[in-house]
């Protein structure tokens, strides 16, 4: 595995096993960005040589504690033909949200956390780390009027186990146009 910073590069040989392996550096390496690259694998290797479980930095005997920044960003949104949106966030989590034009709010694996059927929906990011399908439909009056309606979805994440007191928040807004051709628009 190659460890590369702005002005330092070193290749280390990891055993093809699943145990902690330490590497000392002859000087103190300053880092703001670091890349860990797979540069070779064991011939006939098990899966171990191409996956990374944990990285810990030390300065002398002191461990450098690394946390994620206390914010959550939506990075990408992809709309699919079946009215499903794929989203990814700054931590590599992603979720699948499918939009239904009936007023049902359902999830496949999780069915709580919605504060109301219209207005603001709260979705637990801990759950979205798993595969979640969330169906959100227009409220009753929108179906009657066949007009535009919008719903704000607030993503919040507070994983006290993994990230202690960090709280991540972002939102996206869905505007569903169900007036004529059953198409849906998405805005962020």
């Amino acid at each position, binding site marked *: 595995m190659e460890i590369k910073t702005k002005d330092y590069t070193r290749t280390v040989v990891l055993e093809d096993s699943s145990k902690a392996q330490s590497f000392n550096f002859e000087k103190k390496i300053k880092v703001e960005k670091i890349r860990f690259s797979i540069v070779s694998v064991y011939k006939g290797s098990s899966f171990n040589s191409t996956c990374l479980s944990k990285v810990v930095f*030390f300065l002398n005997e002191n461990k450098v504690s690394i946390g994620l920044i206390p914010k959550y960003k939506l990075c990408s949104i992809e709309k699919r033909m079946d009215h499903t949106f794929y989203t990814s966030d700054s931590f590599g989590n992603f979720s699948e949200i499918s939009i239904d034009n009936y007023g049902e709010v359902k999830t496949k694996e999780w069915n709580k956390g919605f504060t109301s059927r219209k207005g603001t929906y709260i979705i637990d990011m801990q759950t979205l780390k798993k595969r979640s399908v969330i169906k959100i439909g227009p409220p009753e009056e929108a179906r009657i009027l066949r007009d535009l309606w919008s719903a704000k979805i607030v993503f919040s994440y507070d994983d006290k186990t993994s990230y202690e007191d960090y709280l991540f928040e972002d939102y996206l807004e869905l505007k569903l146009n169900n007036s004529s051709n059953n198409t849906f628009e998405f805005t962020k």
Partner: protein
Amino acid sequence: MSFFLILMPFFMVHSKTYQKVSVDKLNASSSLNQANSGEFFPHNILNENSNPWIEGKSSDGIGEYVDMHFTTSFRFNRISIINGFNDKIKFKKYN
């Protein structure tokens, strides 16, 4: 002397204070995406007792990488790396 004994635990604790830094971005060139579950994304390497990051290429994975961007710079002179699965059951499942 007694004054020193009272203060000694204080200094002992503070000599082991960890430096704290934050990751601004954590990207991987690819990630294994089993049934769209997001199980093997790069943020796992900061998380205790989680799955690993696994590259997502169908090839042997050479050239794949993880980038860590920190909000502030820091210095280190030792790295400890755990590669592979820490879970024998999952190792068999995905291997």
